[in-house]
């Protein structure tokens, strides 16, 4: 019984992929990729998702450390708030971002008035939207690894003359490196595929905010062949990354946390 049900699940995941491959215009593959909006969208997607991953690491690792190591009142509520965007529909996240960072938003109006910074409907806005939905993946992965880490190793390093900062750099972070990599890859993959928050907060302007997923969605009406090719590219990139990451990294890092 179990193998049967399991096999159904496998087919369920493989079948859509087969559908895409079946419909792919193999003869004009390169043409579809190298013409029209595809190269622009792909480039934009890669730039934005890498930025979003970078920001997730810079701010997410300290957040993970705070959640794992510092006892403060309301910690579990803070954790829930910071990971809410994982479960909230991305469109809702996009609307929320608009009312926070939009031109007339809670903070956005001052960003514009004081600093002349406008986030919505800009490439920076895409990065903000992607970071918003992607960072929690990194945070929970790294936090889980930090909780698992035997803090006595850090004690040992301290007695060997290492400052807190040195311990963080040479003991703590290297020890959670697999989780950090896994978390960063998950965050990156999430950013690359981000659709709802991006289109709501940053709109869909070719060259500035129209990333691959948006382009795929739009082309589905006008040029389905190109949509399929771009979809395959997104799948191929994600698949290569998932496979090249050793099972162990993703498996242990995520398994630990759940």
């Amino acid at each position, binding site marked *: 019984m179990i193998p049967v049900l399991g096999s159904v699940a496998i087919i369920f995941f493989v079948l859509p992929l087969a559908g895409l491959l079946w419909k792919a215009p193999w003869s004009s593959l390169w043409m579809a990729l190298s013409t029209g909006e595809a190269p622009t969208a792909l480039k934009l997607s890669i730039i934005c998702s890498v930025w979003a991953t970078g920001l997730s690491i810079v701010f997410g690792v300290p957040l993970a450390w705070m959640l794992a190591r510092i006892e403060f009142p309301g910690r579990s509520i803070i954790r829930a708030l910071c990971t809410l965007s994982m479960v909230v529909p991305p469109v809702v996240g996009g609307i929320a971002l608009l009312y926070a960072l939009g031109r007339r938003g809670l903070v956005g109006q001052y960003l514009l008035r004081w600093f002349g910074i406008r986030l919505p409907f800009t490439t920076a806005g895409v990065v903000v939207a992607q970071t918003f939905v992607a960072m929690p993946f990194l945070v929970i992965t790294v936090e889980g690894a930090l909780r698992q880490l035997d803090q006595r190793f850090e004690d040992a390093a301290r007695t*060997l003359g290492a400052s*807190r900062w040195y311990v963080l750099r040479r003991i703590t972070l290297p*020890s959670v490196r697999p989780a950090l990599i896994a978390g960063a890859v998950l965050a990156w993959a999430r950013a690359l595929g981000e659709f709802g928050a991006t289109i709501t907060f940053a709109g869909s302007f070719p060259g500035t905010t129209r990333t691959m997923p948006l382009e795929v969605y739009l082309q589905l009406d006008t040029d389905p062949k190109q949509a399929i090719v771009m979809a395959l590219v997104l799948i191929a990139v994600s698949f290569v990354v998932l496979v090249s990451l050793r099972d162990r990294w993703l498996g242990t890092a995520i398994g630990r946390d759940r």
Partner: protein
Amino acid sequence: MSIDAHLVKRIGTLQLDVELQLADGARVALLGPNGAGKSTVLRCLAGLLELDDGRITQDGRVLDRPSSRVFVEPNSRAVGMMFQDYLLFAHLDVADNVAFGLRAAGGSRRESRRTAMQLLADVGLESMAASSVGALSGGQAQRVALVRALATKPKLLLLDEPLAALDAGTRVSVRRELRQRLQKFEGVSVIVTHDPVDAFALADMVVVLDAGRMVQQGSLAELAVRPANRYVAELVGVNLIEGVVSVGRFISNDGVAISAADHDQADGPAVVTVRPQAISLYGTMPTGSPRNVWRCNVVELDIQGSRARVRLGGTIQLVAEVTTEAIGALEVHVGSQVWATVKATDVELGPA
């Protein structure tokens, strides 16, 4: 006094309140049951725990004094610590583990590694320098942990159960090696153990802790002769036999030869310790060839639960601890004759 400390710390149900004055070169064993506060003493001295009250000074420098809000971080103390399970860093190779403290102190990678290689060569582990720590045997890991702790030249060396993670086979040789290293160490060493034989081998003074208080301090011989209470008597209840080593053989003052496993004790006055649990009793002359066999008579029998303490007289004065089943099987009673045996590896030979 190199170390002058009054440690007051409350953790959970433990209320630690201990005073320690230790001179340079002192080797002190902290002996006591689990939860007595031994490890807490070490963590306070290392700076991994802040005192609630009291003080720690090292060579006149205040390391921790809550009343004047002084607390020196562990990395700024001249303290080295070796942990029970060694805590070698798995993401660094053996040499980088040893070099860790040197690099933390600002040494260059190349220079620190070279020093680490020399230190490893001193303990015969230079061939393992580039190995992962997982490739080390228990005894090797212990040596690396010790070398790592000593690499930064601490004035105070803290050893938490240094032999507990080793199996009985390597324990004897590692213990002897550790003793030699500690004898060369010029600073103060504090060794946490729950084994009086380790305490005797490694330290020249014993501090017995129970429930966060110091119960007694002195040499093991003093404690054995005049235990402050029954608790100390049982804890330190090892057999201490004084005598001399001549031509490599130990002869007690009563003229009994006792074989120890290969030892490094020079000729001259010496003391042997034997754990009561290491002594086996037989109703007849045992077969096989244990090296230490003595015919004794039972002087006193003290049965507590499943264990029985048997005081033996005759050829040699010993206290043995055996199971009550063994007592029943042997039909032992006060005045009966038994054969007592001890394996040479269970005989610890040290300087008087």
